[in-house]
């Protein structure tokens, strides 16, 4: 049997009474790019530090290639941890060259000539050979980021632990560098854990996304799966623009289950119910929360003359309250009379924006297969929307 590169078993970390990490179990294959995603204080950094060995777990085990890591000090784990500081924790008193060869120099297992060759090669790789004698404070954010990567690569570690590696960069550079990093570490076949709180970044670069919240694993899956079929309300709300609609169970019909949301009835696919049921114990209450992504609602200007088909379900009429231009996309806030949710957010291509002015009457259709729903108390949804 092939051992997972990193395997975590029943991992717990407590600070006082507070669980920073609770009951973590996961396996990561060699060469996988895992993005750890969660809001502030979810335990992302703690998880990285546990893997790096900088924090001792309260209980549980971490294996690398089947070898137990718990009692191995960080410097012997052959990982490269890049902490979350604005200067990428480059050592301020060392220049680019000294930073790059820091690791082989410390480990002391290579002869000098080899270290020099390695340093040159890596600085070439990140295009910084000409700046070898610059100090970190003389470099731009992007260059510092590349030095940090060079330093990690020179360590010849097989696991990279990157804590918000793109935090201190401007938006355009972030997008460019995230693909650059991704390509670099994938070419080198490094297993990577990349912490972020930016859901867009996570989906863009990850092989798999590990969503965590309040110290617990919410979902660990490929980006497409997490986006389309979130396993919890939290995961559903965390990605993209999501409408949460509060509803109660009404009755079963042959084409699906019908729920009551305010004065309207909404039909949902049983398939989704089963998916959503997977993990949740049935909630005794009748309360259900529907989650619909903004781009999965179909919107058309309302034309009075055209009669609605009898068989169509989930058709609503509404009024455009506000329109937001977002570049390629635009968002409409549509008020639907009588619905339990005040406004539904709908994404449309900006090229269609001219059809919708504030006050325009529109027809909304929510295909039932686009609705995820969760048997969770309404309170949970309200709390999510508050934060």
């Amino acid at each position, binding site marked *: 049997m092939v051992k997972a590169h990193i395997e975590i078993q029943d991992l717990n970390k407590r600070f006082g009474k507070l669980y920073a990490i609770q009951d973590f179990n996961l396996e990561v294959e060699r060469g996988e790019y895992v993005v750890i995603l969660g809001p502030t204080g979810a335990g992302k950094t703690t998880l990285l530090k546990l893997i790096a060995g*900088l924090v001792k777990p309260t209980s549980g085990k971490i294996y690398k290639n089947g070898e137990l890591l718990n009692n191995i000090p960080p*410097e012997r784990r052959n*990982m490269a941890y890049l902490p979350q*500081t604005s200067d990428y*924790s480059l050592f301020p008193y060392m220049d680019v060259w000294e930073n790059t060869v*820091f690791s082989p120099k*410390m480990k002391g297992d290579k002869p000098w000539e080899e270290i020099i060759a390695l340093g040159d090669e890596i600085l070439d790789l990140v295009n910084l050979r000409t700046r070898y004698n610059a*100090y*970190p404070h003389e470099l731009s954010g992007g260059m510092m980021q590349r030095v940090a990567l060079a330093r990690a690569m020179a360590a010849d570690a097989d696991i990279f632990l990157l804590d918000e590696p793109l935090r201190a960069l401007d938006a355009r550079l972030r997008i460019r560098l995230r693909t650059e990093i991704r390509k670099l570490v994938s070419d080198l076949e490094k297993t990577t854990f990349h912490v972020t709180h930016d859901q867009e970044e996570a989906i863009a670069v990850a092989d798999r996304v590990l969503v965590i919240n309040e110290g617990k694993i919410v979902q660990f899956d490929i980006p497409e799966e997490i986006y389309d079929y979130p396993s919890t309300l939290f995961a559903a709300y965390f990605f993209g623009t999501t409408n949460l609609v509060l509803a109660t169970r009404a009755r079963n019909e042959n084409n699906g289950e019908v729920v009551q949301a305010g004065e309207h009835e909404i039909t949902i696919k049983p398939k989704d119910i089963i998916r959503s049921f997977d993990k949740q114990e049935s909630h005794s209450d009748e309360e259900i929360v529907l989650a619909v992504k903004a781009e999965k609602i179909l919107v058309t200007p309302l034309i009075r003359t055209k009669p609605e088909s009898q068989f169509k379900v989930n058709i609503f009429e509404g009024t455009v309250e506000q329109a937001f231009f977002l570049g390629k996309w635009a968002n409409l806030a549509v008020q639907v009379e009588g619905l339990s949710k005040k406004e539904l957010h709908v994404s449309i291509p900006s090229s269609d924006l001219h059809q919708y002015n504030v006050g325009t009457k529109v027809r909304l259709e929510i295909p039932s297969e686009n609705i995820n729903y969760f048997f969770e108390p309404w309170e949970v949804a309200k709390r999510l929307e508050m934060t």
Partner: protein
Amino acid sequence: MALIPSSHQQQLKQFQTRFIEYVSKPSVSYTWYFFIILFFFTLVLFPTIFVLIYAVLEFVIIQSEVLSNPTIMSEILEALMYSIAVSVTITIVDLIFGLPIAWILVRKEFRFKSILNSIIELPLAVPTAGLGFSVALFWGVTPNVPVKPFFALNFVRDALPILILFHFTTTFPYVIRSLAAILDEIDITLEIAARTCGASKFTAARTVTLPLFRSGVATAMVLSLAKSLSDTGGAMTVLATIGSLKQTSTVLIGNWKGDYQHAIAAGKEPLGYLLPGMAFASVLMICIALCLVFLAKILAKQAKLPFRRVFPSIEWRISEGTAPQARSILSFGFLVFFVLIPSFFLVLYIFQGISIEKLLTADWFLFSQSILLSVIVATVATLVNVCLGVPMAILITRKNHPFSRILDALVDIPYVVPSAALGFSVGLFWTTQIIFPPNELFFVIMAHISMTFPFIVRNTIGGLAELDPAYEDAARSLGARPIQAFHHVTLPVVKFSIIAGAIMSFTRSIGETGATLAVSPESITAPVFIVALITGAEPDYFFAALTTVILILISSLLIFVLRAKVTKKGKRKA
């Protein structure tokens, strides 16, 4: 950059690797830290408060010799009253004048700012024994001093006001320094935000920054209390110069210890009340010091200053126009008149009193011996403290252990305990113990180690607090052993703090009278020598002043060399 290592270098490297591997063993590092803690508890903290245990064990003798002896009791209590009165007054005065001056130093830009910033530290280099003489010469009526300098004010006759003036000179620079350092860290944008909301400069400072500044005020209060309670040499020379027979409690302990030692040296049984009397006075002083410090911390945190009410018209008036300018000039003048001139007044005295005859008749042998002794004691104490205080600071800041917090609180105790009481206690401890052979020099050094240990630890903690542990984490993860991470990553950043601590420790040690006297009056360090010259039957003021100046030069030279060395290496600072 590519050097082909020779075989010698290779050997060295091998040795280095083996050393690093050895100290990285968990057992070795645990043993090392255990040793540090053991050292701190048994050789720093325990001797400092040993007198408390002594007082409990020998309570019967204290009862019979001291408590039931009204003359001795009144002598002790009177001395204590003096000490308390002086230190409390000084603390209040320091705060009243310290806050605006620290403010100006940090937040205002003016022409002499950098000069002011550097001269404010100068009085710290003057040993208090000499400083006491200098201050007394400037303010006081000095019947015994033959040649009076031209500009001497010559009007303070009583012990209390001159002691207050003297302690003001010694504590004020410390207070300013610590207030300014903490003020510097408070974000000025808060104040700017308050001002854009319509508050005058003064209102903004008072209502926004001052409440954030409570911890700074507490630190400053503790500093000036501890410093003024513990000074011995200065108080001795001040009082002797104006010819007063009053005593503060530290002076009392110093004098009695002298009497005790003289009796033993003369082969006589010392007076029965001396030892228990000193112990009793020390215990009282330690308790009072701890209480006052505790009180000061509570006061600074709880005091309800009128933060909420605002008086716009008045506050606008003092924030604008000529008022701020006037305030700056006033503070500057105040500093010069009350701190700088009195501190260096003895230089004037030397120039007036210098003559070939005096230089020839002076006891140069004793002089050089005392200077040498001082330098040795201060150097050894500082070196030991650097070696053991830095790991202690790491233990407190970096090892996340409940024990760390206890250590953090305990480290300050030797600093708060008045040095004469500390010296007496340490002396008592070492003469009571039976493991080490008695050696006066060794005891004095140990007392100085106890006394200056907190300086190094506190400063290093300050430096470590500024360095994000993330750098060390990154280094460890990249394959650096803990000691390598410290050497290559931590040390380049914290070495400035360590050096600052070493300078404080060295200057404090080289200027200390009380602790030395209370441990062993036989060990004539330079400050003890100065005190002896001034308080002796035939005072030699000129030579005392000269010794002081030479001591200042030695301290300044050391500070200069250390600073220069640090900045030369630290050029790459980000």
